[in-house]
């Protein structure tokens, strides 16, 4: 046992205390008698008791401070409290994410022993706390994330954003010019941001409108339109689409799937081929062979019936895509 453990040990502390109060009065009140040449015990008064206690306190403070503290807390019934240093150490990572205004003042935390920092964090992430402004910011961030994926923001991609803003304004019950102004300023604010993340923002969008299917469909359509605005599906855009689809759980949502198809199938045949190949690989990777069959049957029928279109170019497109589907089905 080293010295530190010794001073931290409650048993030693108790032995020391008992020993001190048994032998100290005896030791300190024995005087040397010169005449009899022997020790003589003499009575002590009240002031001696004070000195005993003072010496004892000094020794305890010097040697057994941790044990004494612990015992004192146990006697006073305060429970385990933590120092401000310990508190900061434990919560430093979490508090960075939490708005300081939501933390109770320090004088309240010391009194409230039920205070729980994790509760605030979970409330923050809860869907109830996502307001309309936060949702719109998330939406614009997603738009700009897509727009910047190829290095520059295309005017056509901004057009999609503006059309979506216009839709929101039309639906709004408030003064439309005011809504337009505020949405424009939010858009500007987001455009000036330097760093953007995709996943968390899509989650915010999903949480905010998950129960409103028509709104979800409208937002999703605008996102896909933003992806196809330049009429080209590049691999980075398809990766983004895959992330968005996984959050929106598109493979379980026929309406969104049809929305995506209706936007993408407007593209040229070569882009549709890229799209089919990409989606085919995703479904195959997930082992959803039945889904592949159902999806491509549906697609085949769409294009087969388009053979009866009144426009020659659509008929030609239909025939080409039927071939693409036929070739893809060989890879199952």
């Amino acid at each position: 046992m080293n010295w530190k453990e010794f001073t931290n040990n409650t048993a030693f502390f108790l032995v020391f205390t008992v020993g001190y109060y048994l032998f100290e009065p005896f030791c300190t009140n024995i005087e040397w008698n010169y005449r009899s040449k022997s020790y003589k015990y003499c009575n002590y008064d009240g002031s001696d008791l004070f000195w005993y206690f003072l010496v004892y306190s000094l020794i305890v403070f010097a040697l057994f401070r941790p044990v004494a503290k612990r015992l004192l807390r146990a006697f006073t019934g305060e429970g385990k409290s933590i120092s401000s240093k310990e508190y900061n150490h434990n919560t430093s990572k979490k508090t960075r994410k939490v708005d300081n205004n939501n933390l109770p003042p320090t004088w309240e935390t010391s009194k409230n022993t039920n205070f729980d920092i994790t509760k605030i964090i979970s409330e923050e992430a809860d869907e109830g706390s996502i307001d309309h402004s936060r949702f719109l910011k998330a939406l614009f961030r997603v738009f700009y994330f897509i727009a910047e994926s190829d290095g520059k923001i295309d005017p056509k991609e901004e057009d999609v954003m503006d059309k979506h803003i216009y839709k929101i304004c039309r639906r709004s019950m408030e003064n439309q010019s005011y809504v337009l102004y505020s949405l424009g300023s939010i858009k500007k604010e987001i455009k000036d941001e330097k760093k953007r993340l995709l996943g968390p923002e899509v989650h915010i969008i999903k949480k905010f409108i998950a129960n409103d299917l028509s709104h979800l469909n409208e937002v999703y359509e605008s996102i896909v339109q933003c992806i196809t605005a330049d009429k080209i599906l590049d691999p980075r855009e398809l990766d983004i689409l895959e992330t968005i689809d996984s959050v929106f759980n598109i493979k379980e949502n026929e309406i969104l799937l049809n929305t995506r198809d209706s936007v993408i199938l407007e593209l040229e045949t070569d882009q549709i081929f890229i799209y089919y190949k990409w989606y085919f690989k995703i479904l195959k990777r997930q082992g959803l062979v039945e889904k592949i069959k159902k999806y491509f049957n549906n697609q085949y029928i769409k294009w087969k019936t388009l053979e009866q279109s009144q426009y020659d170019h659509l008929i030609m497109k239909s025939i080409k895509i039927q071939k693409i589907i036929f070739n893809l089905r060989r890879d199952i």
Partner: protein
Amino acid sequence: MSKSLEIFRFKYDKYSKLDTPTLFMNPGFKTVTKAVEETICNVKETLKVKANIRAFVLPDNTFAGKFNAMVSKNNDILFIGITEPLLRILDNKELSFVIGHEIGHAIFGHVEIKNEYENLSSQCREISADRVGFAAVNDISVAASTIHKIKYGLKHQNVKFSIRSLMDWVKNPLKNYSTSHPIDSLRLESIIKFSMSKIYKEYINELSYVFENNKLDKLIYSKIKEQILHE
């Protein structure tokens, strides 16, 4: 597949050896009602076709209009798809014409994926298929009303309709006309003349006929060409 119906092939509908399976098995679509299945059985009996036919309702997301039907094939199984609005406006006989028409496409090998599109060959195919459709109902008025309904989506009671007026439309009054099918008047003329042709009369065991097969096919072909030139 019935080989006896092969004789109905329009002379200018070139034979295609390709017969690629184009639809996966178990298409996963809504199946048709029992009444439609019975109609299919009746058509199969009338045409003496032994094919395994599975019918389904086309999903709503089809591109080419509300009133449409299609046929596809996988090995020996025929898949016939009909849109829900079309099923609603057709009666049993008219439905027989549509099913017969689609079976005709399958018999003549029209289900393969084409390499290129050509108006003329596409319209010739429709003439062949219409003949099988007519053979399934053996009634010109049914064929006429079906063509009319598919075109306009209107129920018979709601519109004044006569075969003569339909025949008189040399050019279709609607601007946006399907180029894959001949115009209605030509389709109807072809069916009427086919009903009086030697080949059809022999099929129904009648002796008298008006049109020789080759002459009839030449006549119809020239009219199709003329129509395409006028477009």
